[in-house]
């Protein structure tokens, strides 16, 4: 199923501590005002993520879900992956290798697309 709604990919700052998280929330807040927002957070730059950062991620998720949208994560840095696992937050989000994969996943269920591509290559 194709979608015409835009997917916003937001790169996270390097440090998601108290100050960084608050600033990040102020930056992304306008994204949640639209109807059914589709947002991807790119974690490739993240080196430090603490409780305040995780709380902001949960707040973002809460607001997006209220608007019937979806939030996905992409390109987790090893540091971010460890903290998300430690705080049991990783299981609340779909996580993709790259932000392109995450953006594509909004329009179709990714495993189906991959399967279709495989069939197409075999047929060719």
């Amino acid at each position, binding site marked *: 199923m194709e979608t015409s709604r835009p997917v916003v990919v937001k790169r996270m700052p390097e440090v998601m*501590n108290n100050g960084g998280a608050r600033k990040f929330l102020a930056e992304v807040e306008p994204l949640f005002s639209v109807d059914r927002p589709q947002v991807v957070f790119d974690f490739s730059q993240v080196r*430090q993520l*603490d*409780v*305040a950062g*995780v*709380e902001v991620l*949960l707040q973002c998720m809460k607001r997006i879900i209220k608007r019937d949208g979806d939030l996905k994560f992409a390109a987790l840095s*090893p*540091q971010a*992956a*460890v*903290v998300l*696992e*430690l*705080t*049991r937050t990783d299981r609340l989000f779909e996580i993709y290798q790259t932000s392109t994969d995450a953006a594509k996943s909004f329009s179709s269920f990714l495993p189906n697309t991959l399967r279709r591509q495989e069939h197409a290559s075999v047929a060719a």
Partner: protein
Amino acid sequence: MRRLKAILVAEKRATVRGITLTLPLPLIDVLGSSLLQRAIDNLRNSGVEDITVVADFAQSDAFLMNGVPLRNAEVVTANEDLFSSAQEIFREAARGDAEAVFLSRVSSYFEVDMDRLLSHHLHFHNRVTRLWSGSDPLPMEAFMVSTSRMEDGVQLLRNHLHDSSTEGVRYRLDEAAGEYVNLLRDANELRRLASDGLHLRCGLNPVGKEVRPGIWVDESSHVASDARLVAPVFIGKRTRIRAGAVITRGSAVEHHCSVDCGTVVENATLLPYSQIGPCLDLSHSVAGERRIVHLKRNVTTEIHDGRMLNSISASPARRLLTFAGSLFSFMPEHFCRGLFGKLGQVGEARTASNGFGTTRAFNPSSKDKAELPEMSPGLAVVRRYGNQ
């Protein structure tokens, strides 16, 4: 048993790759006892009674760092160069009545059959015999040296126990003969050592009382009644496991640690003096001193937020002050609760300030409270669920 002497060299800067700790490797506790103490005990158990530890830290430092003084060995603190002091001790031993001297740097854990080693050394007329790890042969920093060849031992110590020009037929530790070796090259191997000890794959016995099969808990530790321990696990001295925590799958929580409410520790080691926050999930890791080494991801992450992972001071006075501070900050809040009875408001304020606070984990939701009818103040117990 022929007369043997052992000299163990314990360096302050020795560490496990991937873990930066203030504690030197010989003083890191594994299942309740330091690696240095375990090396001494293993030598004593195999019949070596004359053991000297040459260290670049004082006995009092060792006491301060892991809370227990070393037993059954003479400890010599090197004032200048560690290996120069070791050379002097070796010369003295060679002049004495010892037939051979066992020289080792405390950088790995091994269990060796000393009779077998000495027989091998004498059988091949080796001047110096180097120990090699068994299955995947790698050189160890442990040697047997004949005292008749004093210069060989001195030369070996001059080379900081790295290599010897007069090395004879190598001695490989044989697991089939009950020997064991762990080279402790990285955090993975440190974790494997604890796991092997808990699964009884080596002679490394957990220090503590086996309260249930496979569950070792030190008597001075405190485990909440509704915390769950799944065998095999080890809980060290003066450790606190709070309500709802789960320690499972071969985890080791070393001395003076704290595991907060609802946290799950699975197949992980919590190093001494570490505090892990509430409602977290620590798995396949070695954690301590504000660092987590994730063994599956092979990554070391520094944790800057003390609410997730924090260090507890090794000094008892400082620990007492910290406890008093937290008590004084906790009391006014509860005093206000008692005085004004606004449980919900104070609870919510605390939850907002600390997203992973115990309040959030264990407070009933506000919705549940709203559904409850007004109760008589004299009513002590009421069923909230089921057919009331």
